[in-house]
């Protein structure tokens, strides 16, 4: 049963990732997807192999990585904002081509 909210969370994340133009929003969507996956890890661990704890640990590990990643991403976004005064992904194409 717990998989249903995780799936809803993941779909929201995907939808947000594709449609949002604001980098912060994209980052939030990304986090949503990550967390949905974390929930899945925990759930599958609990139901399929109740005596093993790898899933739980992996979840914790992923949360830590996600935190670091968010910190990095926010730092990039802030720097981008400082130079471009804008964090809309469609306008930030100067490095293309």
């Amino acid at each position, binding site marked *: 049963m717990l998989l249903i909210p995780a799936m809803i969370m993941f779909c929201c994340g995907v939808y947000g*990732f*594709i449609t949002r133009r604001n980098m912060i929003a994209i980052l939030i969507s990304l986090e949503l997807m990550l967390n949905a996956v974390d929930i899945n890890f925990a759930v599958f661990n609990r139901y399929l192999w109740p005596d093993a704890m790898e899933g739980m640990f992996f979840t914790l590990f992923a949360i830590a990585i996600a935190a670091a990643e968010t910190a990095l991403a926010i730092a990039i976004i802030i720097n981008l904002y400082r130079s471009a005064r804008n964090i809309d*992904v*469609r306008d930030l*194409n100067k490095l*293309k081509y």
Partner: protein
Amino acid sequence: MDATLPILILAIPLGMFFVLGLAGVKMSHRLAGILGCLGMGTTLVLAYTTAFTYFFSGSPEFVDAAGNRLQALIFDQTWLAFTDKLVIRIGFLLDPISAMMLVVITTISFMVHLYSMGYMRDHHGVWERGFQRFYAFLSLFSFSMLGLVVATNIFQMYIFWELVGASSYLLIGFYFIKPSAVSASKKAFIVTRFADLGFLIGILILSFYTGTFNFTELTSAPVEGLAGVFSVSETTAESVRSIFRSSAAPVFLGGSVLTWALVLIFMGGMGKSALLPLHIWLPDAMEGPTPVSALIHAATMVVAGVYLVARLFPLYLMEVTALEIVTWVGAITALYAAIVACTQIDIKRVLAFSTISQIAFMVVSLGVARPEVHEGLGYMASMFHLFTHAMFKALLFLGAGALIHAIGSNDYTAMHGLRKYMPVTHWTFLIGCLAIAGIIPFSGFFSKDEILSSCLGNSTLVYIWMSAVAGLTAFYMFRLYYLIFWWKEHKVHEGHHAPHDQPWTMTLPLVILAAVSCVAGFIPFGNFVTWNGAPYDFMAHFDWSVAAVSLCVALAAIGLATVMYRKENPLPEKFRAAMPALWTWAHHRFYWDELYMFITHRIIFNGICRPIAWFDRHIIDGTMDAFATVTNKASQAIKPLQSGQVQLYVWWYLLGALALGGITMLCLL
């Protein structure tokens, strides 16, 4: 015979070309001129010695026990070996016609060298610019022409043939500042090049079937039942005969390949000898300095075509069709050039057309020559006429040069009545005119008479035709003579700037050539030059009736010219008015130049070259550019897919994943 002399005959002019060409600018004009004359003088002596040795030494190398003259290979060095058999050799072939040509070429060339010392400086003694270059080119020309006549094989002849063409190009374009001279030289080269293409293809065909370039093998004994020409061993003769029997068999477009080869080779001769329809370059070539016209475009180079046919004459005898073509090309050219010569104003052009006409005489004579008619008189007559014509035509040209030098114009309307002012020029010119008109006892009478006898022996039509041309010749030459030296006098001639005879360097050659023209007719030519080397007594075949008729025709024509042109009178105008169309056409040389301009410019240049260049730039190159453009456009078109927007990629990824999932589901179901 020792090879030193012949080698020197070729080496001296060539060496002189390099000396004057490379070091000429550092020399004084006089030194360059003297060097050139000395070089040519030495060559003259050597050539005379060689010819004398050939004709009179009686050495077994040159004449066999029966008194027949032989072909002697003095030396023959391999120059380029294409295959085992097809080898270009550079050598020295001594036989009657080459020995005779040695004499002709060196004589005229030496006269011209001497004459140019006077001609190439103006009345104040200032030398013509590029004088040294002029002598260098003259030496180059002499070298090439000598190499041509002594060629031992047809490819050597072709090599020197091309060199002669190139030196003629350089000499016609000597005054390279003048656009008319530049275009004339270009025209001469390209027209003769076109003819040489025929020559080359002819050589290729001939050598393909016979497997040899050598004259001695090609002409040894191709006609059955006749004594071997120049007595080559019977085995060689038989092998050549069998080759020709088999090679004459293949037929191409209605003619045997041998006919084709011979006609194509003759095409090369038509170009050099300015026969219809490849004659158009010769009148324009008069843009060159007059001594050059005398040397190249009257006496030596233009007879190369005649010489070529004479050289291969035994082969031509195998294919009578080819000889018929030769005859009629010559006959038509002779008449055409004679008619045109009657209407020209420029004295050099009159002489140019008279040259064309006289060369056509020689060609006709070769064309009608048959061993069974007067023992091949036509061949001998042709060579005889070549010899005498070289002398008197060079005389006429040099005389014309003296006039032009004195007056400063080519136009006879600026001359009139010069006989009092330039007596030497006048008398020598008159001798030249009498010789070309065929008045006894001048040299032209004898040679022309033999040509006419030979024509009569072959066909009456050709005889009547050529007699008429002979009459026309006498007429237009005396028209020219009277218009220059008689007619009414110009007032401008009087006073300080009165024209006068030229310095001795110019008059001496005139006198010498005039003397030769007086006596050359009495040379027993048949003893020296015959088609098969057997000596021949031409007095035995001398036809007095033909001689009388031709003399009468010539005298009548001179009489007519005297009546019309000796004094100013309205007769010429009446004549012109009587046949306006003919006069206009003849005056415009029957519009041959316009026709050629149309073909080369309108059809070839605008109709072939330009479309091809356009095709190359727009179609071929366009296709290549189109490849590039299409690639470029295609990449531009798919570039937005690579937008750098991760969201878009995710979107495509998602769609792809769903599609794959869907397909998997379908497959599983």
